[in-house]
């Protein structure tokens, strides 16, 4: 039952990650992404997915979808109905499940919840629907299919059908915090005993509406995306998906599963300041970081790296820089921070999930992802930005995500030894 929840007197289960799937402009899968993030490779190029000739900015971090789809339980007909966003989602889910080694008896129980974050879902199909609907004379061909597959919950069902899993579907759309909220919510489902295994992630594809939206706001950088740099002039958009399989430690242990990391903290709150601007002094950001670390039982001194929201916009980065500096206190001077949006752009609803995977990579492989074109820090930065590829001892990491509308989220992960 969703309510009332069964009360357990047992200690709260530890939440571990046993599988990860990722697709970004750096590639499909752990290896190419880890290799790219490790050296701070930038994956921006001219937009080819739609016409940008009348846009102010003409670059983004586009994903190259693999030529062939790995085998799933989806039929050819199903596959033909997936838009770009859903394809990336299914690819990431397939990789995560494969890495986790979940087998049919474990996933057919009917209680493997799927929690996804997205801002646009199947917006590409929505755009196609609109274009065809306003054509003269109007034509109906394919429109019913677009109307169905446009909906994020239908795309989520495709994940279940592809993997052969079943369970409740929750779609969180808290703008750019969606992916982090999805991972955090998934962790809570395990902690509160509502599920032993959860699939969580985020996905969003580049689309004309969203690109044009950020361009119209003049939020896109006409030069290069440089989060926290004093000369920053905006964000760059990207696309992608990341999916994580979370399970209770007991479940992973029982299966003898390889554990990639532990989710130890989650915080979320809302900033009322403005629909699109953060509170300038970063008070909500600071509060959500404190909340996540209190939940994790760690202090700033114990955090080895922060994957910042760091969009590259003037307002976000100054607010976040103040928040991190004040939250970290004396620790700020030696605290490594970077924003991997400098490499793959802002993935909106996917950002929090993708950045959670980057944190797991850093924990697993013991390096810090650099921002290679970073030059002059914003005066509000009391911390050091990781500028060069760097091996490091990384035990605890914190990942920030903030969304349009003011929902903020922070996740804390710990290395599994």
């Amino acid at each position: 039952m969703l309510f009332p929840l069964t009360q357990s007197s047992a200690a709260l289960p530890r939440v571990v990650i046993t599988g990860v799937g990722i697709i970004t402009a750096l590639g499909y899968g752990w290896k190419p992404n880890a290799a790219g993030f490790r050296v701070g490779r930038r994956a921006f190029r001219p937009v080819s997915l739609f016409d940008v000739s009348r846009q102010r900015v003409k670059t983004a971090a586009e994903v190259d979808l693999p030529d062939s789809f790995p085998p799933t339980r989806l039929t050819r007909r199903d596959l033909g109905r997936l838009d770009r966003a859903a394809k990336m989602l299914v690819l990431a889910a397939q990789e995560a499940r494969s890495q986790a080694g979940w087998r049919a008896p474990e996933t057919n129980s009917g209680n493997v919840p799927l929690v996804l974050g997205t801002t646009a879902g199947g917006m590409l199909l929505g755009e196609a629907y609109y274009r065809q609907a306003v054509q003269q004379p109007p034509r109906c061909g394919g429109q019913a299919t677009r109307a169905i597959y446009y909906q994020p919950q239908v795309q989520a069902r495709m994940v279940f059908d592809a993997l052969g899993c079943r369970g409740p579907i929750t779609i969180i759309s808290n703008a750019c915090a969606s992916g982090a909220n999805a991972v955090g919510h998934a962790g809570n489902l395990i902690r509160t005993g509502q599920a032993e295994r959860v699939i969580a992630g985020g996905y969003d594809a580049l689309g004309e509406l969203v690109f044009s939206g950020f361009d119209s706001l003049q939020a896109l950088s006409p030069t290069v995306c440089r989060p926290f740099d004093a000369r920053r002039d905006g964000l760059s958009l990207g696309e992608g998906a990341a999916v994580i399989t979370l399970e209770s430690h007991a479940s992973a242990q029982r299966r003898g599963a390889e554990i990639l990391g532990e989710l130890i903290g989650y915080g979320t709150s809302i900033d009322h300041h403005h629909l699109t601007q953060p509170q300038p002094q970063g008070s909500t950001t600071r509060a959500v970081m404190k909340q996540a670390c209190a939940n994790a039982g760690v202090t700033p001194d114990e955090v080895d790296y922060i994957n910042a929201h760091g969009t590259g916009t003037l307002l976000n980065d100054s607010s976040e820089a103040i928040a991190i500096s004040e939250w970290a206190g004396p620790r700020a001077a030696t605290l490594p921070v970077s924003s991997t949006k400098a490499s793959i752009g802002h993935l909106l609803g996917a950002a929090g999930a993708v950045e959670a995977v980057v944190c797991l990579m850093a924990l697993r492989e013991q390096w810090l992802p650099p921002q290679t074109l970073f030059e002059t820090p914003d005066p509000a930065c009391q911390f050091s930005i990781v500028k060069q590829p760097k091996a490091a001892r990384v035990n605890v990491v914190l990942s920030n995500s903030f969304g349009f509308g003011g929902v903020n989220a922070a996740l804390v992960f710990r290395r599994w030894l």
Partner: protein
Amino acid sequence: MSRIFVAGIGAVSPAGWSVAGLRCALSHGEPLPIQSLARPGMNQPLCARLVPNPPVRPEFLAHPRLRRSSPVTHYAASAALEAVAGWRAHASANETRLGVVACLQSGCVQYSCRFYDETLKDPATASPLVFPETVYAAPTSHVAALLQNVVLAGSLVGDPSAFLQGVALGAEWLSENRVDACVVIGAEEIHWIIADALRLLDRTAVVSGGAGALCLCRDPMFSTGVELTAITDAHTFTASVPKALAARAMRQQLGEFPPAGLLVDGLGNSARTDAAERAAWSDWEGARLSPKHVFGEGMTAAAAWQCVAACDALADGRFAAANVSLVGANQQAIGARLVRA
């Protein structure tokens, strides 16, 4: 797990901007008149049940955050304010921690279409004022700003069943003492593109818009006399679990129910769309309310109207218990039970 009570309800529907309007239309039981909705490029208009203009301009529209907001935000705000009014009259507003969960299926479709239309014509002149209002999270954000004291908020997207997931999330926040009250909203706005798509999927469906809201709390002192006692699991439709099976599982999980109780179902007027839910409750002989039959396909707003109607019927003593049945369009089946406290 705490007991969860309903502290207030709110509604905006084709019957007007209040629960009273909803109650009145439901008591007549007749489908509201259908209006025509112009569709660009077609001589034949589409069908809809539109939300009438409010009798007087709502005061909340003067709030700076709502200056450029879309109808879905106005509906959500009005329903939320009506739902929290009773709570606010009891509790000291300054000491209250509120949560807001908004559930949407179509979201901010009016501004999305408008902005995309501008983009297709010339992206260089597409309005930066419109774009931020296209995101699913915009209504939640505006309502949170309007209500103040909101410490937790979130937007869920899905078919109508997502509304009960929202109620469960709100109940969880309350049980964990993260908030003192939580407003759960289902809201939708009408646009010709939604009516156009719905027509392709179900020729008999009539699209409608509006919002419904429940204000949940832990303290029975603030209750309107209604307690939430159960929300079933979310029975997802998959390739191996068709909708009919999921609906039946939801019904079974709700368990035995006194025949003197009320069933508030999600049946409209479509034999095909309603088949699974109709079959799941085929043996039900007790009282039944079907808000969609009266108001049309309001998606998550319609789901919220179901819950509001159930709470209203319990609060005024007409019934001692009510089941709410939500068999969504393409996601899952979820049911809930509410009782007179």
